[in-house]
């Protein structure tokens, strides 16, 4: 099984988010980027499939600051081939990313393409379904369990309320991963450092990016809350006392 996993980096929401001077985009200059957690799960699922059924895993990461580290980490986890997609992806939308990746992925001739079901900065839909259509492959998203065999893949698709559907998908296909069957494995920094000495990152130039299909943004802003919680302050003891009183008022103590 020839598996490709597409991993992107997204703003770390723990950090302060600011709007740039245009007023219509995030200020990316000081933004810390981290691996999209759903892509992290897609990578884990790809490695699990390889461990279970053999094959090759190719990790593709668009060029951002930190892309090399993400690729080397993928290698330390078990990815066989590392590709960095060169281009100005920091400001590119998902339509542009999907088209650029599709060109590279076609050459790799994969059986299965995995990526995260969504990312926190999607504004023109998640990248998976768009990528699938660019590749002419079927897509199933919200997947939290994958099995392969007989030229098809069985994907456990999640619906609201905990209901799941077992979908059978003809290969080649793209799946949007919600959660891998086990948490993404931890690799020690020392192992990543060792990999850096031996693993090779191939670079492909995406060329001119075509972002058509995404909406224009007039302005971005931090939403003004219609309401705000009544904040409980004071020492830890004060806060605990007040919470106990609130529990009593609510009739649960």
């Amino acid at each position: 099984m020839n598996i490709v996993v597409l991993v992107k980096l997204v703003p770390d929401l723990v950090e302060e988010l600011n709007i740039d001077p245009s007023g219509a985009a995030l200020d990316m200059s000081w933004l810390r980027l981290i691996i999209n957690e759903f892509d992290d799960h897609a990578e884990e699922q790809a490695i699990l499939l390889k461990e279970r059924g053999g094959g090759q895993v190719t990790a593709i990461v668009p060029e951002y600051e930190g892309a090399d580290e993400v690729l080397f980490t993928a290698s330390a986890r078990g990815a066989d081939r590392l590709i960095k997609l060169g281009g100005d992806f920091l400001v590119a939308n998902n339509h542009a990313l999907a088209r650029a990746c599709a060109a590279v992925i076609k050459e790799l001739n994969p059986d299965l393409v995995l990526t995260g079901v969504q990312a926190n900065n999607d504004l023109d839909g998640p990248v998976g379904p768009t990528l699938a259509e660019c590749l002419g492959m079927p897509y199933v998203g919200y997947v939290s369990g994958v099995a392969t065999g007989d030229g098809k893949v069985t994907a456990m698709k999640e619906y609201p309320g905990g209901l799941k559907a077992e979908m059978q998908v003809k290969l080649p296909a793209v799946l949007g991963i919600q959660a891998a069957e086990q948490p993404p494995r931890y690799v020690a920094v020392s192992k990543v450092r060792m990999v850096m000495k031996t693993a090779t990152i191939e670079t492909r130039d995406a060329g001119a990016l075509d972002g058509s299909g995404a909406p224009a943004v007039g302005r971005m802003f931090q939403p003004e809350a219609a309401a705000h919680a009544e904040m409980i302050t004071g020492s830890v003891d004060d806060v605990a006392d007040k919470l106990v009183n609130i529990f009593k008022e609510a009739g649960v103590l």
Partner: protein
Amino acid sequence: MSQDIFVVIEHLRGQVADMSYVMLGGARALSKAIGGNVVAVLLGHKAEGLAGNFAADGVLYLDHPALAEFTSDAYQKALVGLISEKQPRLVLLGSTSIGSDVAGGLSVKLGLPLVSSCRNFTADGKYVSQICGGKINAEGDLPSPTALVTMVPGGYKPDAGQSAQAPALTKVEAAGLDALRVSLAKYVEPESGDVDIAKEPVLIAVGRGIQQQDNVQLAEDLAAAMGGVVCGSRPVIDQGWLSTSRLVGKSGKRVKPKVYLALGISGAPEHAEAITDSDMIIAVNTDPKAPIFEFAKYGTETDLFDLIDPLIAKVKAAKG
């Protein structure tokens, strides 16, 4: 070409999803700003009966055996035919396990722009989308002449999309539904688990802020003292720290306890939509900008790791 606003109805196993009514409500509000009819688009097989309470000016009903259950491939193919023939002003889909699976493909296939995570429309007909876990809003003109929009809940109440009067239903031929590459093998019922968190009056919920598996025990201790049950947001479940039966959120359970005590939960939209029916939400989070403080009744920035032990002691003392 028309000014119509299409709403792609989401339904599973004979049940129309609340999101469908939210979108119909949004479409009604938007039609006041930009005109056009609200048209519910229902895909299914022997499913006419679902359309009786749609607050729509009309229903386009595509009936085909291949549409009996949702699959991305069949839905997408049926919608490609319909949208290219009717050329509506807008097509609204859910930013859900159904709508998100088809919207991106439709966008590429039909060459139509796609706006995702739209929460509401402004009075002058602009989209407002929620990104970065609810911390940033993006606003802009709806691309013309036709645009696809996926919607998140929160902007409109499901009531706004319901009507006592059944709208007129028109059957439309569903074409191109051959050589399908995705099929439903079976549904798998949710894990029942030891407790049903949807029925518990006191929920102690843990999020990413609980940091590691060992710390979940702190929440268990507090829950034991209070007579409540521990549940969690997606990251905690995905780490395997709690079983899926304890998941609160878009893909988990909707809960409505008397008290929902959220420990280290930021309150991303996917989580928020499932807890808004709680009588009282209390949020403990060191990030003063966490979206959860916007809909919690009470909040504190006290570090949960400092707070839990004294809180357990005081809860026990109060219980006597």
